[in-house]
């Protein structure tokens, strides 16, 4: 047993962190927010060139040949910087939908009964309906967007949403795609993004608590603030152990537990970070609301707390 990152995994994480810092730093994120850009195709292409989407395709098929643990590290980094776009769907479609692996195609996902994120920017749509995974492109997709899709005013300004009614059995079956595996991996990658966000809001809270002075000392010297920050770390570290282990085992119950704990870590850490920021935290200028809104959104995607808890309860019997 050696349940720690390998040197290669550390290098991979450092590499993607550096890439994202250069291509989607805070200024770029705020510019996208102001401009209302949800998917930046230049960034999307750069991610594709860096192997973000083709990471798990075999090398013989032009991929990088790595596994779920490495994918989880990339998605954790994407979650840290609030990278918008249907990252998981495009990653999962790589190799099956033309152009997805290279980052030339934006692939959104329709999970029956839930709003669809980034439908307007999508070149392809994967529909997970019952036990089937189908893919819509071109005319079929345009027809769906025109007919059955209605825009929703989204909670998260960087994630536009559509409600899609009557997801008829349109499109072709996705090659190699069983619905169960698709959902499992989407859930895990989403949990990894939540983990990244939870870790980032700790840094934001700690930085603020060290610099902001009240009553003649940094607020981080007060136990009330310290204990908020300590609990943030405890949540994130438990979620980290759960997410990383689920990436190694790919076990469905372990993935459900990872999503449950990562959702909790992302949402509650963002709330606590907002509290540590005081009045500043309630403003549009502070980034913390963006983390909270995205975390709330992801908590409702792929696997909700209620669904995860039922799956984990069923495992006890």
């Amino acid at each position, binding site marked *: *047993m*050696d*349940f*720690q*990152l*390998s040197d290669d*995994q550390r290098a991979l994480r450092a590499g993607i962190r550096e890439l994202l810092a250069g291509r989607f730093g805070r200024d770029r994120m705020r510019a996208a927010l102001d401009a209302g850009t949800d998917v930046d195709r230049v960034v999307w292409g750069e991610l594709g060139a860096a192997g973000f989407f083709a990471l798990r395709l075999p090398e013989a098929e032009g991929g990088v040949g790595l596994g779920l*643990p490495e994918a*989880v590290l990339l998605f954790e980094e994407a979650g840290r910087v609030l990278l918008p776009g249907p990252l998981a769907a495009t990653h999962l479609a790589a190799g099956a939908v033309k152009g997805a692996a290279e980052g030339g195609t934006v692939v959104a996902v329709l999970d029956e009964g839930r709003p669809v994120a980034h439908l307007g920017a999508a070149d392809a749509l994967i529909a997970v309906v019952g036990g089937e995974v189908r893919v819509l492109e071109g005319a079929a997709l345009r027809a769906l967007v025109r007919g059955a899709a209605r825009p929703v005013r989204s909670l998260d300004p960087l994630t536009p949403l559509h409600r899609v009614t009557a997801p008829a059995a349109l499109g072709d079956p996705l090659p190699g795609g069983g619905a169960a595996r698709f959902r499992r991996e989407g859930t895990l990658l989403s949990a990894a993004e939540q983990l990244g966000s939870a870790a980032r809001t*700790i840094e934001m809270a*700690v930085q603020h*608590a*060290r610099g902001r002075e009240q009553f003649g*000392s*940094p607020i*981080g*010297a*007060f*136990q009330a*603030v*310290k*204990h908020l*920050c*300590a*609990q943030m*770390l*405890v949540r994130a*570290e*438990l*979620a*980290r*152990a*759960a997410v*990383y*282990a689920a*990436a*190694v*085992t790919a076990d469905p*119950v*372990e993935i*459900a*537990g*990872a999503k*449950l*704990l990562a959702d909790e870590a992302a949402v509650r850490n963002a709330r606590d970070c907002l509290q540590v920021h005081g009045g500043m935290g309630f403003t549009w200028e502070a980034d913390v609301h963006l983390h909270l809104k995205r975390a709330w959104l992801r908590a409702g995607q792929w696997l909700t707390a*209620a669904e*995860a*808890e*039922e*799956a*984990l*309860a*069923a*495992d*006890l*019997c």
Partner: protein
Amino acid sequence: MTDLSCTPEEEEFRARLREWLGDVLPGLPAEPSPDDWPGRRAYDTAWQRMLYDAGYAGLHWPVDAGGRGATPTQHLIFLEETERAGAPYVGANFVGLLHAGPTIATEGTAGQRARWLPPVLRGDEIWCQGFSEPEAGSDLASLRTRAVRDGDHYVVSGQKIWTSHAEVADWCELLVRTDPAVPKHRGISWLAMRMDAPGVTVRPLRTLAGSTEFAEMFLDEVRVPVSHRVGAENDGWRVTMVTLSFERGTAFVGEVVACRRTLAALAAEARANGRWDDPVLRRTLGRLNAEFRALWRLTQWNVSEAQRAGAAGGVPGTGGSVFKLRYSQARQELYDAAAEVLGADGADLDREWVLDRLTSLSYTIAAGTSQIQQNIVAERILGLPKGR
């Protein structure tokens, strides 16, 4: 996160251990009641002797201290398998095996190791811990028990409290103030004191669980040989930190496995008595499943980190604080859920889990309160400024 599997050698170790447990456990006598301390001492030490004879005593201790020099992973397997098989808890051997023993192994002289370690491993001698005082709990370094040199002895006077197993212990790992003139952390020494020495009075304390699992201890001019001091005079604080890093490290590993077993039993009970149909309770049990699975993975993460660092059985104290904070809370929630499963029987002290619920109240207090652990996490891991 490269590898969660075990090597062939580790799997072989696990298989041999399982086989041995399967052979010996059915023949064990019934466990004594929680209040029968002489009975529990006999039971716990007999089990330790069986472990010793089978070569499993002091598994993670260094070989030159009489241990087996096992890797942290092997130690983890040992704790996992013994708990899974329902083997006896470490019990009265706790302080000797997990505190005093490792401290003496790390900090003691050759003579001290030869005198004190083999009886711990064989189950011949029981240790208790004389750290806390009425005025020095979380602020342990402000302890007042004085030790004054008189020739080749220290003369010790003062009072200790929360001393688990004091009634049945042969030795006490005792923290005393040997220099009151210097800052509080610098004037402390670590002594091994015989519990039958003249001047030692033990008075049992009744816990809210109704039992007498710990005691207060009055020390009236107790003479302790200077040769029973482990580490340098006034260096006891550093020596103690060694002990505490063991306590916060692997001390709870077996208990996480035990919690997972309890959770499965709760689910079975709930299905049998119809409470499983309550979706709120069912989801609570599902959430606890996620908690204890993740706590087990966090343990494996910490142990792997320690193994990479080359540490023998311990894990960094700060990682231990993160673990203990969540674990102590989750274990209390586990027994609250048990009360829900039991329904009307939740008030029956003879039903399983009811006494455990009372006992679980100590987890957020013992071995450093949750509030102190949060300060440790905030200051030592997150780097927030020290408070006043």
